[in-house]
């Protein structure tokens, strides 16, 4: 069958159709999608990560007075030096692997990232971080807009989402994102076998290729089906990947392994998305006991990211990747009556990869409860942002992905002093 390529009509909705045949065509397309083989991995820590328990200001007396049960003892933190303001900082005791990566210069911690009038709603907060538009967080996602600006036609695996639902940050009217929560389940079944099944699959591909331009909602679903069919074989190849390390046996570890596998198999994906949850620690946060809620979060984060880093390093792929983690908000400075912390404002972002200029960026908050304290807000209840999150995005878009941050973010958010990449 000859490979056909139909041009698509953008009526403000997804209406492109491409018929694919051989995998070779697809990898050519992937390689043509920009000269560089760099990719971005975005990690969403859902629930609102307590940055003050991850990057600990262990010499700040107010940290201990405002968190009588949650403050991590100074003697246990993993000291990683002082930031630009001279404040000594340490990582949570369980982040030993990340500490090693920090010492190798490949981990950046960007302090006090947030935005003005920080939302305390998980949903609005996530929408704001996803759209990079605090005043109108209902539209397309920032990653979706970056992808939409790439030269068409887009490879159906240009973005690879390891969760079951397309995250808001990747949503864009003209970009279909492959959502692959399980590589092994990402296959086409048939009620028949043998040649009959082959005929069915061929019919399914043809059916999915008919996109009624006058019915955009049907066109959208059809495009999704088409993207699914077009990516089956390539995703199956990732299922054959044998990692060079052992990943943690949990959803987070498995997602990281799939991402590494996609890189190892040269799929050509430009943006990967994964998430891990449980950070909404309103009660019994427990930052120190072995089975404590926050301790388990840090163990999972550390073990997963360390395995990922080591696997890619072994494959000589670390230089091609940048992992950026974010959360919809940080948490309040003072602990609450349930030995937890409530929704807060600014927090720490983490960036990891071969091209990262590691270190501590931004300045830590002073946790002094004086309402005049400029590093806190809301009557010194919350950490006040120093760096708008869009400046972090701008750095990634401009310096790492080679895109245009002004176009993607709808404004100039470039900022000096946070040169982690």
């Amino acid at each position, binding site marked *: 069958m000859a490979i056909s390529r139909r041009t698509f009509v953008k009526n403000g909705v997804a209406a492109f159709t491409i018929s694919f045949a051989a995998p070779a065509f697809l990898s050519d397309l992937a390689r043509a999608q920009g000269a560089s083989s760099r990719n971005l991995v975005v990690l969403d820590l859902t629930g609102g990560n307590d940055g003050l328990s991850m990057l600990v200001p262990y010499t700040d007396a107010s940290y201990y007075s405002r968190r009588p049960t949650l403050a991590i003892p100074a003697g246990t933190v993993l000291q990683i030096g002082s930031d630009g303001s001279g404040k000594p900082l340490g990582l949570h005791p369980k982040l030993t692997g990340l500490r090693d990566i920090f010492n190798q210069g490949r981990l950046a911690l960007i302090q006090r990232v947030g935005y003005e009038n920080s939302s*305390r*709603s*998980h*949903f*609005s907060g996530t929408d704001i971080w996803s759209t990079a538009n605090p005043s109108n967080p209902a539209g397309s996602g920032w990653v979706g807009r970056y992808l939409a600006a790439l030269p068409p036609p887009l490879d*159906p695996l240009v973005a690879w*989402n390891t969760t*079951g*639902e*397309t995250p808001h940050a990747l949503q864009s009217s003209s970009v*279909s*994102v*492959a*959502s*692959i*929560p*399980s590589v092994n*389940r*990402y*296959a*086409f*079944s*048939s*009620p*028949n076998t043998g*040649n*009959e099944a082959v*005929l*069915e699959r*061929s*019919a*399914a591909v*043809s*059916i*999915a290729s*008919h996109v*009624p331009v006058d019915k*955009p*909602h*049907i*066109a*959208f*679903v*059809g495009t*999704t*089906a088409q*993207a*699914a069919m077009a*990516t089956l074989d390539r995703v199956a190849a990732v299922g054959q990947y044998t990692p060079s390390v052992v990943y943690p046996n949990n959803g987070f570890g498995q997602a990281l392994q799939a991402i590494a596998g996609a890189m190892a198999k040269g799929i050509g994906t430009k943006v990967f998305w994964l998430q891990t949850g449980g950070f909404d620690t*309103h*009660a019994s946060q427990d930052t120190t006991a072995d089975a404590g809620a926050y301790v388990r979060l840090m163990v999972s984060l550390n073990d997963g990211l360390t395995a990922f880093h080591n696997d890619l390093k072994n494959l000589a792929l670390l230089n091609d990747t940048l992992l950026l983690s974010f959360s919809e908000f940080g948490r309040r400075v003072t602990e*609450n*009556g*349930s030995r937890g912390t*409530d929704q807060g404002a600014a927090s720490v972002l983490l960036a990891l990869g071969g091209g990262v200029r590691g270190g501590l960026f931004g300045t830590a908050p002073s946790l002094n409860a004086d309402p005049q304290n400029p590093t806190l807000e809301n009557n010194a209840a919350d950490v006040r942002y120093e760096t708008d999150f869009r400046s972090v995005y701008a750095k990634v878009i401009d310096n790492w992905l080679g895109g245009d941050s002004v176009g993607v973010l709808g404004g100039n958010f470039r900022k000096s002093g946070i040169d982690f990449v």
Partner: protein
Amino acid sequence: MAAGDVLIEHLLRRAGFGASPGELATYSRLSYGQAVDRLVNYENLPDTVDSNIGQPGYVGTTSRGPFSPTTVPDDARQRWLFRMVHSERPLQEKMALFWHNYFATGYSKVAAAVRAQNATRLMAAKASDDPQKQQGQIELFRSNAVGNFRNLLVAVAKDPAMLIWLDGDTNTKARPQENFGRELMELFSRGVGYYTEDDVYAAARVFTGWNLTPTRGADLQDPNASFSFVYNANQHETTAKSFSFPIYADGSRTIPSRSASAGMQDGLDLIAALAMHPETARRLATKLFEFFVSETGPPDPGFVDDLATVYLRNDTAIKPVLQRLFMSPPFQDASTRFTRYSWPVEFVVRAMKEVGWAGFSVGSVLTPLVNMGQELLEPPNVAGWVLGRSWFSTGAMLARMNFASALAFNQKFNLAAAAAAARSSPRALVDFLTARLTVDLENDVYADLVTYAGAGAAWTGSDTQLQAKAPGVVHLILGTAAYQFV
């Protein structure tokens, strides 16, 4: 097919989960108005669906040991799916699903507090089946499905599963817990932008003392525990609470300071004010429009206003709103058909009703639903599932297509037997199956189906050939973009 049938099919897909051939025959004998009446005034029909579980002729269930929907979460899910397939009161189950998404309470957090058996009771037990007469949250929705919304809000505020889910059980006057108060305003009534942070703090204080017995620390895993709402006067914060919107008919925005013993009235006053607020009416009417009428375009503001007015004029009753909606000309207009993205649950139930279920089990639907992004009793967070296009990620679409394959395979002999009258040609087979699956296909999709039906060996119309081609065609139809809409 007569024009009336197409309208009835549309009504049954929206007010219910589609129609089996038998149900279609029953409803097609009624006028449209009679059909709406039968659906909306469902209390006139028997609520006997549960007694059919395990009976021949109905879809099966799969359980380890005896079927225990009161205590085993997957059995509770299967019972609800069984009801969706077979209930004579489809609107009751459909509205229960709507409220389940609206008040999205997740089983896992409840189970973390009271363990699996009691969490299942709190989410799904029928009082008549439970030794302690526990009524699960889903049963609360079924009994209040089309009733008074203000009463539903009060019942939800007192519901044990909700008290655990939104931390009402830790809301005390010393440390007011904001979670429920915030979501009551952000998600359950007026919505984002129509309340302030001060309102949240005030609402938290309003509900101090609204608690649950037994308290944490008691043996919450005891399967004989009886969970119920209790108002702890000594935990109630008794100062006046001021809001940014009117609470009382005279426009006053302050709930007065009351004695602790009388303080439960604070919550009733706030809920009454929220339920009757025009912004709540508009927001709820919009959601009902998007659920029952259309979500492929912006909601019609005039229609939404009309529904909101009916809601307010009827003291927040939902039934008259639905009556108005189903009888409206826009709902009946052909342009409204297939303008709603089917939820995974709707997709699988409609498929079972249209394809057939004899020999199939709703247990086989549970994992596919997870893969499609909708595990019953486990919404992703308190805002519920994200609807519309969000259902259609590539993985979720493959999950739908693969479920279609499993159902078609399971039903292949039934389908071949039913299609025997259409064995004369590939085209006849496709015509028969597209009619049965109540879907509107584009010409080029239809042509592909006919091509597939005739591909491979020469057409004979033999039983063997039908047993391959009928499930094949059904699998393909269920996987079309068009079939994903109701």
